[in-house]
């Protein structure tokens, strides 16, 4: 119990979001009903790469119920540009890194939108899409980035000088000397694939234009309302204040709703041009075809280690398949390249990461944001060092870990803005020790031997993961007490399923001194919050949470000041004249030792809203409210250590996960119930990346996995129960000591699972240097290993 008489922070408080969801009363974008709304279906490229010679919309226009068929030309009048603006200050990338709103001269991937039908229903719109005739002059499609980066390769997009967006160069320490003097040098190659985000609700937007003012309201399924508001305003040539984004309930994001998409701008433009409400709700096929993905990386590196197996240097190159555009610049490949450090001391590191354009949908981060790939590389290297030196895998890791005494630890890397990357806090060894003990790591060889005597192949894998969280530069919160006594929290954070409303309500309740039932959290509505950044980078509990804490405290202080000025004790002494403590408890201001005094916050709120012509408290601002922009220029580093046990069926290649254990340090845990939910969900997402999810394209860049029957997500029968534990090393970077939870759990999973699979198959001498590893591929590896050992 804190001095406000509440005790929410750190407790497994049940979610404030759930009641409406459980009753089917959530309001997702497709549930928002505005009269006279017209519906959009997009005409999408059927070619991986082609020049558009003609788009014939005549027959489609004539379909009864069709209001309009719009191409890029038709959108010109409403838009400042037909290409999206660069979303990030992306250094060397030029405008061709960004996708067009509707493709007009050239399509660069299958699924790219090139026209839109606006009709009275989605059914009619889809009918008409089939009657839009597009003449394509097919161009060679670039599928493999290793081919696309060759000098003589065809271009994935015309009028570009090269298929290489940019080459990221990381170089610190004296790498070459380290290789000259190293006791051991290993060469490794890795292939890493990661599919799409696949929230269960796809993308969607509803645009309504006020006929008088021309102001635009966008109901959107988004992770970043303010980015959408800013981009839409810029594109529609309107003031930021004439565009409002109202985020609906969002059916998951996982990265896919962080970007402003061409379709969203096209829908807004269509509503401006046609002067009717226009809605587009993505179907699953469209998500497969045109939502962002994380895709492929090819790593080729050398590792120098000391006699004792400590890392001395890593050098090499990575090729990243970026797809046709780079709407968030180099985030994923940069994160992969930099996250190779993981939990370890790496004295020198030199890497060239080539970011290559191919004819596939664009890459921006999926939950984990490229960290999974770098982590896979370094964790597989740890296993390799242990194997080569015939040492224990846990021991080799221990020798290489950054020690808690080294915190804050300057990694040697520079971030995207050029500032040093510094890990703020954490005790990686403690997490490892706790997890290995809980997993009975010592007893595993015996369990493994016993299983093998029964003809069963079980294996254990482990991996550390470290993730920067709480990305800045700021987040906003306004806390306002209504005269009804209810408290509203407005924030630029976006609620997309991560329990943000609950955690922010907990923080507000404790810092202000009210019951959580009195608090309503409104996320990401740009009419209430002018400056916000939204849901990405595991940031909201830390950034918005601290903003709420500051704002709530300020409201409390304000209320106390008004009470001091205006109220008297039960004996008639002005409160300001006595030297006893005032405090806020359960929505009331009380005075120590004087139970008679009880001034409700709602009463103060009614004073603070003023009465015409009457006096007002001195030296306090109007309204019982406060706004705080919490700033953080440095990121807090969350970490975790995972142990996984698998059993592999030699005949089918089936991998069963028998046990999964995770020890995480995410700083102060605001709500253990929802934090565990984040960890479990992230791990099962990672299991999909390790074993199931594959977004495949054929040689013409035609996607071949565009249903959930082809592209497999983990289901309940494959997902293990997860033993999840927390250690709390408070981050020194924010008053609440928070680090983010949302992504760190997904990061070590691929490495841990595949390490366990490899360990299970150790009698065959198999090395797995790729992810995902499907049953067919596993059998292939087993057969190859058996053949070569003959």
């Amino acid at each position, binding site marked *: 119990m804190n001095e406000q008489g509440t005790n929410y922070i750190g407790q497994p408080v*049940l*979610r404030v*979001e*759930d*009641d409406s*969801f*459980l*009753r*089917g*009363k*959530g*309001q*997702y974008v*497709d*549930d928002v*009903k505005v009269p006279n709304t017209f519906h959009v279906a997009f005409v999408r490229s059927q070619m991986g790469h082609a020049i558009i010679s003609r788009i014939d919309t005549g027959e489609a226009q004539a*379909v*009864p119920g069709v209001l309009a068929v719009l191409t890029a030309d038709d959108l010109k009048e409403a838009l400042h540009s037909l290409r999206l603006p660069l979303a990030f200050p992306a250094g060397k990338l030029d405008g061709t890194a960004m996708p067009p709103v509707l493709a007009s001269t050239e399509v660069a991937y299958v699924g790219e939108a090139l026209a839109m039908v606006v009709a009275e229903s989605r*059914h*009619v719109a889809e*009918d008409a899409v089939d009657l839009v005739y597009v003449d394509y002059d097919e161009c060679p499609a670039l599928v493999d980035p290793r081919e696309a980066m060759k000098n003589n390769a065809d271009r994935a997009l015309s009028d570009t000088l090269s298929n290489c967006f940019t080459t990221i160069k990381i170089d610190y320490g004296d790498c070459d000397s380290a290789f000259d003097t190293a006791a051991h040098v290993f060469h490794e190659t890795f292939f890493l694939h990661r599919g799409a985000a*696949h*929230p*269960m*609700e796809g993308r969607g937007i509803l645009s309504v234009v006020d006929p008088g003012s021309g102001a635009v309201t966008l109901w959107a399924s988004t992770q970043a309302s303010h980015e959408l508001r800013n981009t839409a305003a810029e594109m529609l040539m309107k003031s930021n204040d004439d565009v409002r984004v109202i985020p609906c*309930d*969002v*059916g*998951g994001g*996982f990265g896919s709703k962080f970007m402003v998409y061409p379709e969203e701008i096209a829908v807004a433009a269509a509503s401006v041009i046609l002067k009717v409400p226009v809605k587009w709700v993505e*179907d*699953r*096929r469209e998500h497969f075809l045109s939502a962002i993905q994380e895709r492929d990386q090819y790593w080729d590196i050398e590792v120098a280690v000391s006699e004792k197996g400590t890392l001395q240097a890593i050098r090499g190159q990575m090729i990243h398949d970026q797809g046709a555009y780079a709407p968030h610049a180099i985030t994923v490949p940069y994160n992969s390249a930099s996250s190779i450090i993981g939990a370890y001391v790496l004295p020198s590191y030199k890497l060239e990461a080539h970011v290559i354009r191919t004819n596939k949908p664009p890459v921006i981060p999926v939950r984990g944001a490229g960290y999974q790939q770098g982590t896979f590389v370094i964790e597989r290297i740890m296993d390799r060092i242990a194997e080569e030196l015939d040492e224990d895998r846990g021991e080799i890791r221990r020798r290489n870990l950054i020690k808690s005494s080294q915190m804050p630890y300057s990694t040697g890397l520079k971030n995207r803005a050029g500032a040093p990357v510094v890990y703020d806090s954490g005790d990686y060894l403690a997490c490892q020790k706790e997890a290995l003990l809980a997993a009975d790591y010592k007893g595993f060889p015996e369990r493994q031997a016993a299983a093998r005597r029964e003809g069963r192949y079980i294996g254990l894998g482990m991996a550390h993961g470290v993730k920067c969280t709480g990305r800045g530069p700021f987040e906003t919160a306004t806390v306002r007490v209504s005269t009804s006594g209810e408290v509203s929290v407005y924030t630029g954070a976006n609620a*997309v*399923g*991560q*329990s943000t409303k609950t955690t922010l309500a907990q923080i507000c309740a404790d810092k202000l001194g009210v019951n959580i039932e009195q608090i309503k959290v409104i996320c990401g509505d740009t009419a209430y919050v002018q400056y916000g950044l939204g849901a990405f980078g595991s940031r909201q509990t830390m950034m918005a949470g601290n903003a709420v804490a500051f704002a709530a405290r300020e409201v409390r202080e304000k209320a106390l000041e008004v009470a001091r000025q205006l109220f008297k004790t039960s004996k008639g002494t002005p409160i300001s004249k006595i030297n006893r403590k005032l405090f806020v408890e359960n929505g009331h201001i009380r005075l120590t030792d004087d139970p008679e005094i009880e001034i409700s916050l709602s009463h103060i709120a009614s004073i603070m809203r003023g009465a015409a012509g009457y006096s007002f408290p001195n030296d306090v601002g109007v309204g019982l409210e406060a706004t705080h922009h919490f700033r953080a220029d440095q990121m807090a580093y969350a970490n975790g250590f995972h142990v996984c046990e698998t059993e592999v069926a030699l005949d089918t290649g089936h991998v069963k996960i028998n046990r999964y254990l995770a020890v995480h340090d995410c700083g102060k845990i605001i709500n253990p*119930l*929802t934090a*565990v*939910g984040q960890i*479990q*969900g*992230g*791990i*099962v*997402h990672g299991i999909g990346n390790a074993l199931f999810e594959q977004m495949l394209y054929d040689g013409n860049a035609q996607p071949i996995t565009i*249903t*959930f*029957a082809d592209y497999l*997500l983990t*289901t*309940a*029968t494959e*997902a293990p*129960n*997860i033993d999840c534990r927390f250690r709390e090393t408070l981050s020194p970077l924010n008053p609440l000591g928070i680090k983010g939870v949302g992504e760190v759990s997904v990061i070590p999973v691929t490495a841990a699972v595949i390490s366990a699979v490899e360990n299970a198959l150790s009698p065959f001498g198999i090395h797995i240097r790729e992810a995902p590893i499907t049953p067919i591929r596993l059998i292939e590896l087993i057969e190859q290993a058996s053949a070569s050992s003959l």
Partner: protein
Amino acid sequence: MPTAEYIQNITLSVNGESYTSQAEPRTSLADFLRYNLELTGTHIGCEHGVCGACTVLIDGNSMRSCLMFAVQAEGKEIATVEGLAEGNQLNSLQKAFWERHGLQCGFCTSGILMTLTEYFEINSEYSEKTIRDVLSGHICRCTGYESIVAAALDVANSKEAGNE
């Protein structure tokens, strides 16, 4: 192309209430529930029958409402998520989901609740294995399923203890 001549009158019962509305024969039951009857608690996640978000009960049997035409549901008794709560009170399954944090974004939840409602209707013995088996017809991207299984097991334990 569809024209008015194909429009059908469809009468069916949802959560005990009778509805009549007009739709084309190609209208899926999911679209009919959502757009004609404005019962938007049933969600559409994939429209190819894999994700399970649109699951409803038809005469007590769980069905993908995205794979069934509204005309096929003529005269049927349909149960959707909107009918689960007992007045203002969440029912025991809904409560268990709340207490166990069995949902995050909430989008897949309606379908899962309907499948589990059927599971508890037609079975008298329950186990984690059979719960996971019926849940395997659903995709949840948020939770990792464990909390959903825990919620279902809470209901199972309560039923087995004779509390319901």
